[in-house]
Every structure is written in structure tokens, then in C-alpha cells.
């Protein structure tokens, strides 16, 4: 098996962190439109644009306030307990209704792709949100490479099960390993990405290194972390949270301010760093791009 080094991001591609933070100021100061400097500045595929009040959530919060029960249920547990997690070498099993089932070395699997930056809102089902500059690859491109069969209607993502490395798994808080899934059209949607980095750096362990899913129009828990298995299925996968509390967490879990969690409202959210809550947007603000996926579906029933 060909084992390759992680695809190094050319240093020319990496935005200097101080520039990153002050990007807007820089642009304003330069008095130039983004188009004009596009060729000079390493501005990448930025999805969250045209909203100056939505600042990036600081690195400290993105990497210090995590829901990753494999490393503990406290928000600061993952940062503390994941420091020695080994994320290389990493194998990903591809299985099910697919032309190229195999156990892949992660770097080999991702070799043909160049991670690009995507700034996404991240809305947790608990009622808080962040704005995160992920570094990722369109999930659809990876799926195309694996060539699912015509029977494949869903994709299932399984997180590593390793209680030695993941102390949270020593308690049966959830039915380990963590499983998430998407309908094929959702998975192929250009906004769905496989993430390998954040803030121009490799993904920290507490954020789901080395490979996690981000589906920005769904609640955060849909984004499985430390993925070891991608399985294509004909039937809807049994996902962890929907098994743990079927009345509280559905398979779709689209961000929807009109459908409340049975125990709390989803109408508003607290953006990390802000004291007062702001209105939650339908599909987390990505309705223009994704609403058509659910045309004709009763979103109250398919929550």
C-alpha cells in the first residue's frame, strides 16, 4: 500500500494569521475590492460573505469549547483529553454499495484533492453557534472518486472506537461508536465538506482530527469526527443521537428555528462571544442553496 505524507499545504496558500483576523480591515484599508486583490491575496473559497456582523469565532473558542463526547461530556474535556490522540497514520474503510470498497490510507484517499477554505456558521443543537474557517474537501468529490453503485441511497460515517485513546468511550453515555449519516443528495451537495483543517492549520484532535464531516445547514452533531468508516447503504443509517433520543434528534437534523427541541426552543441562538441571543436562520442561513433538497417534505415530521 502506498503510504504518503500528509498533503502539505503550500505555504503560499496559507493566510497569515494576523492577516486572517484583520482581513476585512485590510481590505478596507487597501481600498480595493476583493476582486482586485484576488490575484494578490490568498483569498480562497469564502462561503460566508456579505455579512460584516458575523465575525470569525476566535481560535481559542473553536478549539476550546467542543462537543466531542468521546473525550468527555464537558465542553473543555476534549481539549484536555485529546492532546495525545494519534491521528496518523489513519485508515478509512470504504464499504457497502460502492465500486471501490477498501481500507484506504487517509492521505492516499485525499491525495487528489486540495483542501480549500470554507467559512461556515456552525449551529449546535444546544442553542449556540460559531463561525468557523474550515479547511476541507467537497464530500461530493470524494464520493465521486469512490463511485457508489446505483443502490447507494445514503452514506454512513463511523467515528473511531478506541476507549484507550478516547476516555469518554469508557462510559456508555452513547452507543459507541458514533454513527452519522446523510442522504446521497445531501452528501453530494457542494456545501457538505470533509474537513481536515481549521484556521489554516491541521485539524486539532478536539475538533475531530484527522477527518470530520461538516454539513453547515444541519445541527453540529451531524458532523461525525475522527471518521474511520464510510459506508454506502440502500437504507437510512441508524444514527447515534436519533437512537439515543428519537423524539429529540431526527435523522435530518436540519437547522430549523420553527421546530423546537422538545426541551428547548430553537428559535434563537447564542453566537459564541456574544451575550444576547440572535435569531436562528432557516437551514442556518443556507436555505437558498439547500432548501430544494427538501422540497415537499414535512420538516416538522422529518426533523
Amino acid at each position: 500500500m502506498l503510504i504518503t505524507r500528509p498533503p502539505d499545504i503550500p505555504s503560499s496558500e496559507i493566510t497569515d494569521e494576523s492577516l486572517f483576523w484583520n482581513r476585512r480591515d485590510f481590505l478596507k484599508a487597501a481600498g480595493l475590492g476583493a476582486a482586485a486583490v484576488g490575484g494578490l491575496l490568498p483569498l480562497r473559497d469564502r462561503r460566508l460573505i456579505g455579512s460584516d456582523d458575523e465575525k470569525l469565532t476566535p481560535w481559542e473558542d473553536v478549539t476550546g469549547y467542543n462537543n466531542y463526547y468521546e473525550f468527555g461530556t464537558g465542553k473543555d474535556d476534549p481539549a484536555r483529553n485529546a492532546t495525545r490522540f494519534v491521528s496518523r497514520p489513519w485508515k478509512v474503510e470504504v464499504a457497502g454499495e460502492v465500486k471501490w470498497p477498501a481500507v484506504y490510507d487517509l492521505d492516499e484517499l485525499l491525495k487528489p484533492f486540495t483542501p480549500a477554505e470554507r467559512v461556515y456558521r456552525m449551529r449546535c443543537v444546544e442553542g449556540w453557534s460559531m463561525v468557523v474557517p474550515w479547511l476541507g474537501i467537497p464530500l461530493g468529490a470524494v464520493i465521486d472518486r469512490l463511485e457508489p453503485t446505483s443502490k447507494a441511497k445514503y452514506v454512513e460515517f463511523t467515528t473511531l472506537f478506541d476507549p484507550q485513546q478516547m476516555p469518554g468511550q469508557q462510559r456508555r453515555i452513547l452507543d459507541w461508536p458514533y454513527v452519522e449519516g446523510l442522504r446521497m443528495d445531501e452528501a453530494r451537495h457542494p456545501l457538505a465538506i470533509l474537513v481536515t483543517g481549521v484556521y489554516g492549520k491541521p485539524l486539532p484532535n478536539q475538533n475531530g482530527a484527522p477527518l470530520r464531516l461538516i454539513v453547515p445547514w444541519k445541527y453540529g452533531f451531524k458532523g461525525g469526527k475522527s471518521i474511520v468508516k464510510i459506508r454506502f447503504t440502500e437504507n437510512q443509517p441508524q444514527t447515534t443521537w436519533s437512537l439515543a433520543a428519537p423524539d429529540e434528534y431526527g435523522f435530518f437534523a436540519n437547522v430549523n428555528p420553527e421546530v423546537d427541541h422538545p426541551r428547548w426552543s430553537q428559535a434563537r441562538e447564542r453566537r459564541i462571544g456574544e451575550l444576547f441571543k440572535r435569531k436562528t436562520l432557516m437551514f442556518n442561513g443556507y436555505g437558498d442553496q439547500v432548501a430544494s433538497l427538501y422540497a415537499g417534505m414535512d420538516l416538522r415530521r422529518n426533523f
Partner: protein
Amino acid sequence: MTRAALVTRVVKPALYFAAVLPLAWLLFALLSGRVMGDEVKFMQHVTGDTILTCLMLTLAMTPLRRLTGWNEIIRVRRLIGLTAFWYACLHLSTYLVFDQSLSIDEILKDIAKHPWVLVGFTAFLCLVPLAITSTTGWVRRLGGKRWQRLHRLVYLAAAAGVLHYFWLVKKDVQAPLVYGAVLLVLLGSRVWFARDRTRARRSLSARTTEAKPAA
């Protein structure tokens, strides 16, 4: 030092100091920027834990007194109870101001729709009359017996507080269960002592009836 002096000179001052510690930590953590993520949640967790801890402590005074015979310790109960109340005011304020932006409409909807909010409110409302009647003047005005009966509301407040916590956590109910277990022991001890007392009274009255014919 007598046991009474120990309470007034050591235990009470120490408790005054301890009572401001959670607030000091809260402000320090917030102002020094060491709170990761949701700062309002942090305020609510620190104040919430303080409230429940104080309520458990007030409920521990009676069993402690019975077990040790240290009667003077009861003098610190009001201080601990009021600490619970002041932190409950803070806790509630963060909810009203930051979570609901003081919108009466939203607050009423939230209470009506979500049992854990209702239960939390109930706990707070139970504490209000207890705080008001905590003064010596009110004890006198109500009379010991009636005052005591009113202050049994603290059982309801503590139980509602624990339930509030239990219902709000997403999945990991370990912490609320620990509070629940402590509360159960504290309330259970009262049943136990009450039975003890009845038994003592019965044997006492038995002895007096036996004594009668001889008299």
C-alpha cells in the same frame, strides 16, 4: 473556645468569605477571558452549582446537629440559605436578561412550553418567602411553629432545583444525579430522625403510664 464561640468567631466568618468566592471566581474568569465558549452558560453553571450546594448545606444542618449535638451550628443556616437566594437571583437574572432579553412574552412562552424552566421558576418562587421571612423579626411575628412550617418550602425548592438540572442536561445526567442522591440522604435522615423521636416519645409515655399506678 466554646462551641458557640467557634460558630460565631470561626465558622460564620469563614462562611461569609466562602459565600462570595463563587461570585469572585465568576467575575475573575469572565474578565480575564478564560471562559471558553458560552459565557452566559458559564454564569448559569457557576451560580446554579452554588445554589444547589447551598441548599444541600442548609438541609444538612439539622442532621448534623442531631448527629453531633452541636446545636449552635444552626446559627449559620440563615447565612447559607440567603447565599442560595442571592445566587438564585443572579441565576434568574442571567436567564431573563441574556437568554430572553427581558421579553415578557418570550419568558411566558418558555415557561409554559418547557417543564425544566417551569420547575426552575418554581424553585426560585419557593425561595422568595423564605428569604423575606429569614429575619428574627419575622420568626417572632410568625411564631416558631408557623415559621418552621413555612420554611419546609426549602424541601420543595431543593427538589425542584435538582429536577431543573436533571431535565436540562442533554445526556450526561451524572452531576444532577449526585445532587439528587445527596438530597435523598438529607431528606431520608429527617424521616429516620422523626421515627426515632416517635419511638422515644412512645417509650417515654409508656414509662409514665407504667409509673401511674404506683403513684
